[in-house]
Every structure is written in C-alpha cells, then in structure tokens.
C-alpha cells in the first residue's frame, strides 16, 4: 500500500556507529551560551541581564514577536554576559551566557505533574508555548503556531516524522527506543490539540527495533506506526506526506493546505515533557558522530553546551576533521568554530574527514540525468545549475520551477561531475528574491 519510492538516494547511512548506543547524560558544562534566536522567526528579547542569578527552566528571553518561541535557562547559575556570540546557523547572534553554579536547581513552581487528558486545547497550547518548543527535526518552527492552523485549512491527519533519513543521525532512533511512552504521550497531546483522527508515525524501515517498540507503545491508542522505505530524503515533510497520506502539497503551499501537520518525534517527546511534567525545552538528544570522532555517541545535552564540550564527551578527535557540521551531511551547516552552542535544532554534530566528504573539482555537466532521477521534487537540477551559472534566473524560476527546490542535496550528491547544484540554486533563489515579486 505504500507508494513505490523512485526518487532520492540511498547513501551509506553510517548509523551503526551510534544506533546501538544508549543516550548518555554526562557532567554538565561549566557554562552555556544560549542564543536568543533558536527558531524560525524573530529573535527573542532577553529578560535577564549580566549579573542576574537564574534557575534551570527560568525564562531568560521572551518571544514578543508573533513568530517566536521563548527561551529558558538550561542551567542554574549566573548570567555573566549578554553579547554577540557565534551561532551554528546564523554566524553570529546575541546570546545569554550562564555560568554553572553546580546546583542544577529548578526554577520554583515550574515542575508539576498533570494529567493532560483533562486540559483543554487552549490550555495545552499555552503549556507548549510557554515551554518554548520548536520543531526539533531541524526546521525549528515554533510548535504552538504550527498547531494552530487557520480556520480555512481543516486538518485531518497528523504525521509524526521519525524517518531520520540523514546519514549518521540516530538521536530520534534512540529517543524512540528509550522514551517511547513519553513520545506517545506527546503524540496524543498533539492529536488532541489538532483534533485529528488519523495519526501516523513514519519510521524508515532500517530501524525495525524502533518500529516494534513504537508499535507496542501505541497499542490501543489508534496511532498507526508505519515503516517507510529507507531512502533519503524521506524525512522531508513533502515526501513523508506523500508516502503516508498519499497527498502532494501543491507548489508554494504548506502541508496544512492538504490537511496534514507533520511533527518530529523528538518534538513529540518535548511536548510530552512540557505538558505532563512542566519541563521546558532546555535539553535535547544529539548524535555526535563522523569519522573524526573518537567515540561516536548519542548525548543528552543542555541547550547552550558548546560543540567543543560535546565532542570532549566523546573522547575528542581521532584525527583533525576537515569539516564540522551541525545536522546531517545532506542539509547540515558547516561550522567555522567549535565554540558554537547546541541549540534547539541541533540533532547532530558531525566531524568529517576529507575522505568522507569526497569533494572534488567541479566540471561540466555531462547530462547523465542522474540528478533528475534523484530529485524528489521532479525538477531538472542539471538545467537549474546551468541557468544559475549563467545568471538566467527568470528562466530557472518560470520554466524550471526554481522555487520548488527544497535544497535536499540529492542532485549534488549523485552528480558525477561534482556540480555544486544546490549552491547554484541558493544563489539563484537569492537573486530571484532580490528581483522581488512576480
């Protein structure tokens, strides 16, 4: 019944390094650097200043804009600085630096066990909003907004994205194995907020253990656990919607236009934590892997922990990495320093060597057609790259659907001429945006 998957690529998933390793919680860092922008949208405004004493879970930056999400202290201690700091996604961003007082003391009145079943939709949404929850799959869209679709888009399907299709990453996999109950609680909460009937959890079929654990945890809830073919980028919203709901999101529209909301499985757990126990989003599961890591691991890390601290918990480098990424190798962001902190959207830290990168000089397109076969959106990446190279942006936009590209990277991955197709696409999109309108 699952539609046959023809698009995408099937790289070496490299997950064996960490998929069997339980999530580790180690000593807390001496300090955390917490950027005021860790979500898609407007930055938060700091509500603490240098010298303030803060408790774990205390709100330290407030979401005053409509599209934003509160930020909380992930440690108890003293604010020693509020200043621009390196940010793994934005380059630089104002951040609140907290020095650990070693107490790890919770903000008073925060923790409370609730039976969520008795709460109304509005109350649930408020709890989610106050906990500062964003999409943890990497997109970091504020969840309380995604769960409040406009009246004219009735939602009938919730998809929990547990595909985890990027190579190396196993954070979601371990989350399901170790916290299935909390995940299911979160899923049921989202279901209640959206009042939807169909709920699917989509898991790539290279994780049969997770499929089994989730099936057991979902028994009697009506939530359907669906193994889906292992193929990158099956975790892309549009792809998992097509496979599980047999719907295509029209070009330029959001999933809600076809009645679907997609949430990541880690997000579901965070929602479970927030609603059931009152715990705001102050930590997350991060896979630290790649050839240059001595001991690849899945870590539970406080938001604001530096990459350097995280890597130290994994025994440091086995050799000098040539590239350090936040996220997976297909869509991750290359870092220029290890000072950057783990933020809400950090699902992985990868340290890669030249051999794994396999990069080479770019050459002319030989029109082999592999990029076309691989493109999940059905585009012609070869033409997009050529038009981008020549600066023919209007043609790329109007005749070759430039704006439909989701920058998944399949085309660049398969290209034997090593063409930097995604880079041309980004460049063209930027030019198109500057030209504006139309």
């Amino acid at each position, binding site marked *: 019944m699952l539609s046959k998957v023809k698009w995408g690529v099937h790289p070496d998933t490299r997950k064996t390094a960490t998929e069997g390793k339980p999530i580790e919680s180690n000593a807390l860092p001496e300090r955390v650097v917490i950027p005021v922008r860790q979500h898609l949208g407007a930055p938060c405004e700091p509500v603490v200043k240098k010298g303030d004493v803060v408790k774990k879970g205390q709100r330290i930056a407030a979401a005053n804009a409509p599209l934003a999400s509160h930020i909380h202290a992930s440690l108890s201690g003293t604010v020693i600085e509020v200043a621009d700091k390196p940010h793994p996604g934005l380059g630089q961003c104002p951040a609140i630096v907290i020095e650990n007082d070693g107490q790890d003391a919770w903000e008073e009145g925060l923790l409370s066990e609730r039976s969520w079943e008795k709460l109304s939709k509005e109350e649930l949404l408020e709890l989610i909003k106050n906990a500062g929850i964003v999409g943890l799959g990497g997109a970091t869209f504020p969840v309380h907004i995604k769960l409040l679709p406009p009246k004219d888009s009735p939602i009938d399907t919730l998809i929990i994205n547990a595909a985890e299709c990027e*190579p190396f990453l196993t954070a979601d996999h371990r989350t399901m194995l170790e916290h299935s109950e909390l995940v299911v609680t979160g899923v049921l909460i989202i279901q209640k907020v959206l009042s939807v009937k169909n709920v699917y959890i989509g898991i790539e079929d290279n994780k049969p253990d997770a499929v089994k654990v989730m099936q057991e945890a979902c028994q009697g809830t009506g939530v359907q656990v669906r193994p889906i073919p292992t193929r990158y980028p099956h975790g892309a919203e*549009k792809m998992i919607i097509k496979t599980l709901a047999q719907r*295509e*999101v029209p*070009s330029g*529209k959001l999933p809600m236009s076809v009645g679907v909301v997609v949430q990541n499985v880690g997000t579901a757990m965070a929602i479970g934590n927030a609603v059931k126990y009152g715990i705001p989003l102050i930590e997350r599961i991060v896979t630290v892997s790649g050839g240059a890591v001595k001991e690849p691991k899945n870590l539970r890390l406080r938001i604001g922990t530096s990459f*350097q601290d995280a*890597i*130290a918990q994994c*025994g*440091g*480098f086995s050799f*000098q*990495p*040539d*590239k*350090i*990424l936040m996220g997976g*190798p*297909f*869509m*991750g*962001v*290359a*870092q*220029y*320093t*290890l000072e950057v902190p783990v933020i809400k959207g950090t699902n992985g830290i*990868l340290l890669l060597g030249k051999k*794994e*990168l*396999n*990069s*080479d000089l770019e*050459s*002319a*397109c030989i*029109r*082999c*057609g592999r990029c*076309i*076969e691989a*493109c999940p*959106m*059905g*585009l*012609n990446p*070869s033409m997009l790259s050529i038009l981008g190279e020549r600066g023919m942006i209007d043609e790329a936009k109007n005749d070759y659907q430039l704006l*439909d590209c989701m*920058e998944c*990277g399949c085309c*660049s*991955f*398969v*290209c*034997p*001429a*090593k063409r930097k197709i*995604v*880079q041309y696409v980004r460049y063209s999109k930027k030019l198109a945006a500057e030209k504006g309108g139309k």
Partner: protein
Amino acid sequence: MSVENSHQEDSANQLIVSSSPHILSNDSTQKIMWTVVAALMPAVIFAVYYFGVPAFRTLLAGSLSALIFEALVQKIRKKRVTVSDGSALLCGLLLAMCLPPAVPLFVPIIGSFIAIVIAKHSMGGLGQNIFNPAHIGRAALMVSWPVAMTTWTKMPSVIDTVTSATPLNILKQQGYEALIQTFGSQSDMYTALFLGFRNGSIGETSVLLLVIGGIILIYKRYIDWVAPVFMIGTVGILTWAFGGSNGLFSGDPLFHMMAGGLVIGAFFMITDYVTTPITRKGKIIFAVGAGAITVLIRLLGGYPEGVCYSILLMNCVTPLIDRFIQPAQYGRK
C-alpha cells in the same frame, strides 16, 4: 579534556565551510568514461584479433590523436586540461570503431580532429555539443573520402566465397538470397553476425561482445537499458514488417538487428549522455526515432547503413525533446 586549545586553533583555521550537501557519491565523470572504454574492450580486442594489425593501427591513431587534440584545444582555450577524464579517449575510440579497419592512417586522425576540435570544442566543450562527435567525424570522413571509407578488407568467409562487401552492402546490391549464399545458410549467417566473423567497420563485428560490454554498463547503471532495447526493438519490428520482398511481415528482423553498426550504436552511441535526451521518456523517444530512421535509410535510402545518420538526425531534436519531456513534478498537478 582531550581537545586541547592549541589543537583547536589549528582545526579552526583548516575547517572547510562550504555549503551543503557535504558528502558526495564516489562516482565521477572520469570513472564513468573509463568504464565505458573498458566495456568496449572485449569488442576492440576481438576486432584486433580478427582484422589484424591494420585495425590496431587505426584504433591507436584515432584514440591517441583524440587525446592530443583535446589537450591542445584546452591549452589554447586556456581551460583546465581534462584528458584524464577519458571522454576524449572514448570519442576517439568510438570514431575509430566506426571506420573500416584498413583505412589510410590520416583518416582516423582527421576524423578525431573533426570530432574533438570542431564537433566538441567549437560548441563549448564537454557537455555542450549537440551532435555525437564521433558520428560527426565519421560523417565528414564519409563525404570527404567516400572510397577509403567504403573499402573493406576481404572477409575470410566461413565458406569458400570471398567477398569484400559488408553484409548490408550485399543485401542492398544483390538481395537477400545472395546474402544467405555468402554465409552458406541462414543459420550460419546468424552465427557469423552474432560472433563477429563478418566484414564491416572495426566496431561492427561481434554482437556478442558488444552486448556483453553494454550489459556491464547497464548493470553499473551507467546507461539506461531503454535506449538499446527500444532502438534495436524498433529496427527489428520495422524490418520484419517492411523489410521483406513477399509483402508485410516477411523481413528478416534478426539479420537487421545484428547487422551493421546497430548494436554498437544502440549500446554505445545513443547512450552518450551529452547528445541524447536527459529523461527516460526522452531516451525512449530518441531510441525509437533513431531506430525508425535507420530502417528508413536501410530499406529506402541510398546508403546500405543508416545508424550513423539516424543518430545525428535525432541529435538535432534532442534539445526539443528535453524541452517538452519534463520529469513528473511534485505538487504541480
């Protein structure tokens, strides 16, 4: 902590900060081209064994001169010299395989010049040319030196008859009966064509060995099976339907499918990425078109063989096919 600070500085200076994706598959243009060259080797080696030293000399001249011309042009155009990518070698080799074994030495060299310098680089280099360079080379030679291009070595026939014409020539000039007689019997003819004991261009010999090479490329997913299957299939069906002298469906499709340059054309020429459509649907249209034109030329045209011209003609419409046959797009129904 095992990540010391000094270490740290170092690494920070060397980190690559390019944009995603960060991993690439390990296929490369070079690997593909060299694999295609390797896939041609069984047929090449057989041709050298069968036709002897002249064929070897022609192959060597074609390939080497192609490499040299490529390097020279790139030097002059001040481009990165990419002879190691194998595309020029492949082009020279394919051109030589389209020639009679014993042509004068200048023929493959001039052919390579036309293929590399005129057909490939004057259009902008690898990936830009509309026409298959090897076939442009061959077509130009055909017009310029028609005699040299159609003088065949004597075919060491399985029976006593000795002939210096290709099977398609015999068919065109003397008819099907004469053709069968040349080989002895129909089944002898099929065997000879299949194994490669026949007259023709260097690369037109052994169907068996060419197909083996082609299957390796299909298996490695370097070429799409639809191209050879649809082209050879089209030729088979059309010659069966219209190729006989006793009305419809009295032709000999097996002969036509194995004769001439069809097999090398279908497996190695219309699978050239640059000059054929980029989508699978487009490839099918191309293959059927090339097959149909081949039959048209063979049955009605002035030349005994039509593979080369049919491919060149279809090359012309490749940009058009690509323009209209677009992949099925997500979310745009």
